[in-house]
């Protein structure tokens, strides 16, 4: 029995590896094959052109430009909201919290990071509803700002955790150097810990950007629509790549629209993979540096 099990494990592990990588490549390459020049001007700007759409605000009807802009705008706003609070929480966890407080907070953050995105979307939606009841005239309604606000809650735990690990993995002697020179805790954080942990924190933030770009459930409850064009201000509805893919998959009327959805998928994968590669690169450079110092 024992003799039989052991070689089987090796074969099985190779089999699993090949199977998963095969499925992964199969899925992604299928999307690439079905798309048609996703990075071309026609795919993004349709019959309009780069100059007309970007500089003269000519509306684009048959390209991915509005969805692409919506996604980029959304991602930037969400991360701008989430970064101060996320890194703040991470710093609090690594430098201030002790004992029971640390345990409870870490648990709460785990709960938040396991929360389904649709529940967060529902929260954003309830926020709109309640706000509307209290201030019927001045409520923000379904808009890019509410989506960004909800998404920032979604990525808050990611940023908090990556900040916490970044600070915790710093060298102990480095962490104490500022304090030994007479700096107080905050000064130590500002001048020693944050600059040294910056690359790792940044790579966590880049992954949070990718998480914001891909999420669909939150934005479909809080403000993404099919034909909004580019939002003029943050209180307007918007288009986004993932929502476009979802919407098209159920409502497409022509082969052309379907090809656009495939193009959108390739663009979205491209955005997420690029963010992943940069984040990975920064992280490995940072950890390589650390090894050399040691």
């Amino acid at each position, binding site marked *: 029995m024992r003799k039989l099990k052991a070689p089987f494990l090796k074969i099985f592990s190779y089999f699993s590896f090949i199977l*998963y990588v095969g499925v992964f490549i199969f899925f992604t390459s299928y999307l690439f094959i079905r798309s048609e020049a996703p990075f071309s001007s026609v795919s993004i700007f349709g019959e309009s052109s780069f100059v007309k759409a970007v500089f003269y605000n000519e509306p684009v009807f048959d390209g991915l430009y509005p969805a692409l802009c919506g996604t980029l705008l959304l991602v930037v706003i969400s991360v701008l909201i989430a970064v101060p609070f996320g890194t703040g929480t991470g710093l609090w966890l690594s430098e201030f919290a002790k004992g029971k407080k640390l345990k409870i907070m870490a648990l709460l953050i785990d*709960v*938040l990071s396991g929360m389904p995105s649709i529940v967060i979307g529902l929260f954003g939606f309830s926020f709109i509803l309640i706000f509307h009841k209290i201030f019927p005239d001045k409520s923000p309604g379904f808009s890019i700002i509410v989506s960004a606000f909800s998404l920032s809650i979604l990525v808050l735990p990611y940023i908090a955790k990556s900040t916490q690990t970044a600070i915790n993995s710093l060298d102990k002697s480095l962490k104490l150097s500022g304090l030994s020179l007479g700096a107080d805790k905050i000064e130590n954080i500002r001048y020693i810990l944050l600059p040294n942990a910056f690359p790792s924190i940044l790579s966590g933030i880049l992954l949070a950007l990718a998480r914001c770009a891909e999420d669909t459930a939150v934005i479909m409850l809080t403000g993404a629509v099919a034909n909004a064009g580019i939002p003029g201000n943050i209180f307007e509805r918007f288009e986004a790549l993932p929502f476009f893919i979802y919407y098209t998959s159920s409502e497409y009327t022509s082969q052309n629209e379907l090809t656009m959805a495939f193009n959108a998928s390739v663009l979205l994968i491209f955005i997420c993979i690029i963010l992943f590669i940069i984040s990975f690169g920064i992280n490995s450079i940072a950890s390589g540096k650390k090894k050399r110092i040691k």
Partner: protein
Amino acid sequence: MRFYNHLLKVTIFSGAALCAVVILLVFLIMVFLSFPFFSHEGIKIFSQSWNPSSGSYGIAPMIFGTIITAVPAVLIAFPISLGYAVFAAETGNKYLKKTAVIIIRAASSIPTVVYAFAGIFLIVPIVRKIGAGGSGYSIFSASLVLAILISPTMIFFFYDSLKSVGKPIQQGAFALGATKSEKVLFLSFPAAKKGIFAGTFLGLGRALGDTMISLMLAGNSPSIPDSAFESARTLTAHIALVMAADYDSPEFRSVFACGIILYLLTAFLSITANYLYKGKI
């Protein structure tokens, strides 16, 4: 200078406080908004029939739909993920091991909606052929794609816990004449047991909480299915579909009840995983 220090201090403490407040607020708001639904419908919300036009708002089919798509997904993903993790941590070739880790990190950054979209063209037609007569939009299709989605989460965890088995014990196993595979089977697996459980729980949490795959592939009919090739509606898909209803209807209120159930389920899974695998998540 002082101002910035002060600002930093305020950010740190308000960040932590805000985080805690938000987590509780999400729950309280849903309880508040679903209260009329619970008090009006009472125990009837767990009935098996969802038919707003005749006034029955049972969400049992959705609860069942969630479980019946998520659990098989974990069952499919578990052996493959464990095998992959063993490959990346132990048995694989030196260079492939590193590649395997990078691939899995890249795979976890692929958008969910993209998996679901590809599934419509790759999985659904095949399922339509083998599942006699159905449309192909079924529990089976959704579970299959969910398994692909949750594998990276599980692999990460398994890999991490296999890696964290102490070096000295591992060398002890070799000293006793164990081969690499024997060491994994009889030493690493038992030692990494808690991590493996924790990863499985988190994978289940992701599968339960995913919206796009079940919404786009499971067919969304609000009744209890008879076979794996029939359509089902999950709690998450239900929330996404009913949002269009009138805001004061019980139909709409039921959405918040689904939200609470999802919140409690995933919170339970996260807390259990956290308890099993302290501080490592």
